[in-house]
């Protein structure tokens, strides 16, 4: 497991940190993360986890790069328009850091394939753009015991939280169920300031690295909210909900189910 001289130089700014060191850098190399969505949140998260020297990244996205993505999905370049997003992301990661193994999946995360896809990954990073998949990822994390980091952005707001299944509040402990149709604007209607994706996506990547290294205080049992227009960062305290339908004392959700994919925020 020794590092080459080139790797020692590449990761020297990590290794010099007493909280990381050579031992921590090995932990990063041994870790894997399954990133759902190579979009606004997934792009910066994948780039920073790759730069940090994570051993393996799984990137799932069934979409192709669209010109309207480039305002925030910084892993994709103009020449990539029309290319599969997962493939485009893999190309950038490979060019940036050949140490990282990247596995791409050109499909949608659904109830029927989710368990199989996530098997073997240490962490899940939620970079999706709809409630149905966010709830599916949460249930997947809880039912498989895989720690995950949630993120969401819309207009000038963002939020993030880390979840250690069985131990800390999950997404359903906080937001029970997806809003009904008609009550929320779609992402396309609402818009988003592109840089929000960078702020929240890199917070998510930071939380994954902290969990890998076992340092600091994880963003668990807290929902961090960021209001860009006011430069307002705050957090609300969360608790594991005993009545949570998936991680509570008497769960009613015991298997994965697909929800209707729509909606963006309240």
């Amino acid at each position, binding site marked *: 497991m020794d590092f080459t001289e080139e790797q020692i130089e590449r990761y020297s700014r990590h290794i010099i940190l007493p909280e990381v060191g050579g031992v921590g850098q090995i932990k990063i190399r041994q870790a894997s993360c399954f990133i759902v969505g190579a979009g606004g949140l997934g792009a910066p998260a994948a780039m920073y986890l790759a730069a940090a020297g994570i051993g393996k990244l799984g990137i799932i996205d069934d979409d192709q790069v669209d010109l309207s993505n480039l305002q925030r999905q910084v892993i994709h370049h103009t020449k990539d328009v029309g290319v599969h997003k997962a493939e485009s992301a893999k190309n950038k990661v490979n060019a940036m850091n050949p140490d990282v193994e990247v596995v791409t999946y050109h499909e949608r995360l659904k109830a029927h394939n989710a368990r199989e896809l996530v098997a073997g990954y240490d962490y899940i990073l939620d970079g999706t*753009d709809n409630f149905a998949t966010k709830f599916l990822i949460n249930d997947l994390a809880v039912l498989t015991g895989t720690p995950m980091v949630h993120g969401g952005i819309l207009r000038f707001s963002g*939020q993030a939280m880390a979840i250690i299944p069985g131990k800390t509040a999950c997404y359903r402990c906080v937001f029970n169920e997806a809003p009904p149709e008609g009550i929320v604007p779609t992402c396309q209607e*609402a818009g988003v300031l592109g840089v929000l994706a960078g702020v929240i996506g890199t917070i998510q990547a930071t939380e994954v690295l902290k969990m890998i290294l076992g340092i600091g205080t994880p963003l668990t049992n807290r929902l961090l909210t960021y209001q860009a227009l006011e430069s307002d960062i705050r957090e609300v305290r969360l608790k594991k909900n005993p009545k949570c339908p998936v991680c509570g004392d008497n769960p009613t959700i015991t298997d994965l189910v697909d929800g209707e994919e729509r909606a963006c925020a309240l």
Partner: protein
Amino acid sequence: MAVTVRIPAPLRKLTDGQGDVTADGATVAQMVESLEKNHPGLKERLCDDSGSIRPFVNIYVNDEDIRFLKGPDTALNEGDSVSIVPAIAGG
């Protein structure tokens, strides 16, 4: 009791763009009525037809989830800070 309510960005079109508004009430339920009086339309976004807080809306009194306090009957004290935090699904 006068409390300060933090309005999330998606609902600010109902508060003339204000992020913080003042409301009255001895409980969260009364506070919601007070919000509705000054900013019509807010209650419908926060509560369902039966008046219960919608499951995808979270209300915090001084950063504590009212679900773990007394829900809509949670008492408010003068100067309390109430936050409304919705789920955000964009990515």
